[in-house]
């Protein structure tokens, strides 16, 4: 029974990683950059939600919507100010700028909200219970976990349909294949890239709310480690691939929880990363990634 319980926790955590990884993978596919500030957008989403509920007394749904809108706007603004001017610069330059944005967000949060951990309000408790008890109390599934997994699946399906069947989605795929050619076909590249960042950041906000609901402490550095792990998950699943982000995220979450439960809590991170390295040794382009051969 504990195996099942851990599996559910793993899938739940993995879903959160998957949603974050989606943001990384979409931005990488289109702008060929690793947006290291992504993890901190999650943190901002969490804080926005916290502020509206704790200080303004809003109810959960509007708070979450505000967080999503706020993060989306943040994503677009950051892209326009910091990344767009560097479109033609080497990718390492954009990486460093992203790091600068990450530092900025973390320190801004530190100034605005202080370094003391905030307790995130409980959103997902219905009729006083935090979850469902099955098998006579042996298996507890929290509502948070159920909602997290459901949200993740909905997002994945929605995104797959979006990129596969809508005009905007096709534009995104075109731009990620060949920016110049897409432009020649009349696609507004700037708008498409901004849209990608917007979607990614919006997803980050959702991930932030779900993350803070599962692990209720909120600090300026909350987004950092999940960001790194989700980035790892995105590469693990094959960077640039949406199903890869899902697979990578879920596997990472499950491995982390199982390592924590069955091997060692302190060494769980080391184990997760070791598995990643081993997988990459066997499949150098990630689980679902494509190895691009150089033409001689």
């Amino acid at each position: 029974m504990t195996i099942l319980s851990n599996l559910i926790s793993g899938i739940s955590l993995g879903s959160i990683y998957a949603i974050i990884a989606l943001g990384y993978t979409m931005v990488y596919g289109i702008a060929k950059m690793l947006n290291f500030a992504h993890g901190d957008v999650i943190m901002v989403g969490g804080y926005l939600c916290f502020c509206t509920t704790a200080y303004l007394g809003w109810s959960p749904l509007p708070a979450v919507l505000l967080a999503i809108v706020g993060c989306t706007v943040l994503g677009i603004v950051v892209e326009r100010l910091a990344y767009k001017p560097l479109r033609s610069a080497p990718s390492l330059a954009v990486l460093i700028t992203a790091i600068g944005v990450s530092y900025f967000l973390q320190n801004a949060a530190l100034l605005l909200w202080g370094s003391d951990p905030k307790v995130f309000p409980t959103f997902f408790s219905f009729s006083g219970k935090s979850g469902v008890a099955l098998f006579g109390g042996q298996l507890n599934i929290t509502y948070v976990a159920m909602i997290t997994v459901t949200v993740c699946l909905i997002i994945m399906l929605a995104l797959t349909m979006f990129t596969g069947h809508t005009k905007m989605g096709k534009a995104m795929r075109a731009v990620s294949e060949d920016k110049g050619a897409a432009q020649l076909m009349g696609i507004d590249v700037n708008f498409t890239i901004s849209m990608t960042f917007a979607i990614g950041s919006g997803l980050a906000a959702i991930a932030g709310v779900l993350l803070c609901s599962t692990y209720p402490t909120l600090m300026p550095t909350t987004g950092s480690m999940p960001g790194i792990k989700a980035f790892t998950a995105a590469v693990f699943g094959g960077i640039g691939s949406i199903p890869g982000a899902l697979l990578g995220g879920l596997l990472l979450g499950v491995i982390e929880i199982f390592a924590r439960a069955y091997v060692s809590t302190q060494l769980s991170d080391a184990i997760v990363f070791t598995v990643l390295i081993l997988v990459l040794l066997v499949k150098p382009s990630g689980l679902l990634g494509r190895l691009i051969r150089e033409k001689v």
Partner: protein
Amino acid sequence: MKLKHIALSTRSNFITYGMVIVAYAVMEALLSGGLLTSSLKGMLVPICAYVVMAVSLNLTVGIMGELSLGHAGFMSVGAFATVIAAAALGSTVAGPVRLAASMAVGGAAAGLVSLIVVVPVLRLQGDYLAIVTLAFGEIIKNIINCVYVGLDGAGIHFGMKDAAALGLAADGKMLLQGPMGAVGIPKLSSLTAGFILMMLTLAVVLNFVHSRSGRAVMALRDNRIAAESVGISPTRYKMMAFVTSAVLAGLAGGLYAMNFSSILAKKFDFNTSILVLVFVVLGGMGNIRGSIIAAAALTVLPELLRQFADYRMLVYAIVLILVMLFTNNPACKALFARFKFGSSTRKEAV
């Protein structure tokens, strides 16, 4: 003709060495004259350590051309190995010798670990390689956080559970206590030691780059397929560069650790790796002199921003973003090209 071609790069190297020598002389004078604030005094050795970190990372990122996001991991291994070695040597050995020997152990330990890391590094490319280095950095941090090391009459004891499980004799001393890090470190580092390490690092890296091994590594960076077609083995030369870079990082870690009475594995995390990467990118990829200047300047910068009090790190972040935007703006690039800063200048062919 022959003399002239050697002189061009040698001249550039002399400027780099000279710069470090002058900086050292000035700092040493200020230090002995008691003219430095205590915060600046405390930064001298860390600056030396970060300079060595930046130069060694430039060997991997700029010269070899591979993004490494886990360089702090090697610094960490070096730091803790040095601490253990220093304790094992005991105070019977004279200060400077003890420091040098311990640091050598630290460097060697980092080199050994790099032999494990290099295996996937050689098989992967680009972002996947970067991820693996990041992973190793986290793994090293995590493992050191769980290690317990103690020293007593019988020797050095290692364990992963807790202090008691080590079975130390009554007069034994705990060196490394898992998440609480290393304590009781003899503060043997000095500015002079830092200076010597910096000069050694410069000599190793500059001489490596201007030798056939350096050329081979740079050829692999510029065009791997062409390099293989002229008989350059990627495995051999990448390993050379990577392990050298790791050993230097280990030495830097040793110097850094012996500057404090206690250190935590947490200090050598992803953030530190990124910090050093920023030094390298800002200084210019492959530009050794640039790395030195960037490392020194950016380490001191938060101190200079003290007047901004709480807004210090925010300003640092904004400055970083602005500098990146500025240096990559096509208009500014054209302006800089006319002054030809930094890297060894080459005549553009007519």
